[in-house]
């Protein structure tokens, strides 16, 4: 990372972490970071690292991931992320980018699932291969239209399950996804919340993941995003790659279909 970019980011993070950053809307603030970061989203570094990891022989089988089938055939990555989650005949499951990637790490490289998912998200001083790989895989759909028609019966079922979960209220605050993301133009404190039940709202949200989160100083994958929203809902913690999270992704990607991917994104 260039030193001036690092400073710009630190300033941005500070401005965001403050209790209130003036009357300007969050969107204005984000537009400002976009300008500041015009010469590079830090996620691009992770994208490059992901590409390296993808091509490098690794694991007990000393194999690369180049033959991984993300839905369009072995090794075909262009536009694959934009068409996930989808049903895979070999596993008989609807899988998202992350569960499919882990499947390839297990089947092609010989990692155990526990090894492959041990560091599914990064912490300061502790990188995550999955984050890098998903950023790379996502980037390969940049410019492609999200296309999850959910026509296969299993996909259609998961879309309905996701919709059900989206409106399911429980917990000590009576929360559901819909209470934060079911209306136009709302915000919680100063954070703008899209309406994820419309094509425009879901499109804006889904097309920009994986995303570099300035406030976290890290790239977040969609699994990470949704698992954190469940934390905000005050629910217990889902398993990484859980079917409920994948079902929500099918519902959201189906709603967002037609929107052009702009990934990696950059967010608050």
């Amino acid at each position, binding site marked *: 990372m260039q030193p001036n970019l690092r400073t710009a980011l630190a300033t941005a993070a500070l401005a965001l972490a403050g209790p*209130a950053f003036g009357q300007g809307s969050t969107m204005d603030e984000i537009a400002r970071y976009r300008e500041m970061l015009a010469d590079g989203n830090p996620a691009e570094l992770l994208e490059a690292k992901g590409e390296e990891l993808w091509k490098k022989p690794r694991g007990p089988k000393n194999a690369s991931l180049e033959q991984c089938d993300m839905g369009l055939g072995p090794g075909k990555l262009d536009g694959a992320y934009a068409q996930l989650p989808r049903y895979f005949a070999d596993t008989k499951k609807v899988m998202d980018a992350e569960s499919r990637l882990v499947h390839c790490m297990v089947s092609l490289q010989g990692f155990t699932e526990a090894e492959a998912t041990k560091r599914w998200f990064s912490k300061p001083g502790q990188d995550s291969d999955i984050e890098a790989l998903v950023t790379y895989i996502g980037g390969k759909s940049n410019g492609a239209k999200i296309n999850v028609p959910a026509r296969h019966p299993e996909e259609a079922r998961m879309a309905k399950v996701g919709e059900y979960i989206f409106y399911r209220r429980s917990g000590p605050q009576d929360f*559901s996804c819909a*209470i934060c993301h079911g209306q136009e133009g709302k*915000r919680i404190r100063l954070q703008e919340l899209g309406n994820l039940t419309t094509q425009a709202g879901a499109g804006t949200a889904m097309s920009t993941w994986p995303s570099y989160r300035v406030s976290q100083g890290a790239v977040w994958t969609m699994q990470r995003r949704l698992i954190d929203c469940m934390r*905000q809902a005050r629910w217990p*913690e889902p398993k990484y790659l859980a079917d*409920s999270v994948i079902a929500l992704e099918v519902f959201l990607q189906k709603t967002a279909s037609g929107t052009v991917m702009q990934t990696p994104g950059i967010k608050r």
Partner: protein
Amino acid sequence: MKNTFIAALLALGATGIHAADPIAFQAEQIFRSSFRADNPRYWMTRLDQDEAMRLCSQYKDNPPAKVRALIEKTQQATIRYPVEGKLIGDWKEGEKLAAVGTGGHIGFIQPDPPGRVRGGNCYACHQLAKKEVAYGTIGPSLQHFGKLRGNSDEIVKYTYDKIYNSNAFTACTNMPRFGLHNWLTPEQITHIVAFLVDPESPVNKD
């Protein structure tokens, strides 16, 4: 109480959702089996739904009039008052509680540390005192609440009841039921009531 509720629902044809809707049945199973096995059991009870939650989910927060009326009636019946019966507390305490958004986060990644103060987090959704600009808009602005409505016994009771159980007035509202869930104690609610209605409170000044 609970039985009459269920009987009334049956009369309305509003229960039996799982039997009638195979997706709901599967979705419940998928949802509940999606959580880490090491979540303590008392955390997992947060996934249980009472009748109001179940109905609100079923109707995507927009129940038909009869179900709505039923929810409001049964929720009204849950409201409990502080022992001394005084519904207006200390607005300064209420001001603090309205701002606190921490508390109640569980899980392994970023839970609230034990003993973390828990507040009403009213600013997440409402504009209140003018000086706080970081307010959300999920709920209506409550600025000048007391100035506009006064502090008659009736308004005070309504305000207390609304915070204790929001669904007593608006079935399936996005506002949490703070008293019902013991998220706030009756005493804490009286402080927040004061913050809203006391003429000296910053909500009603400037």
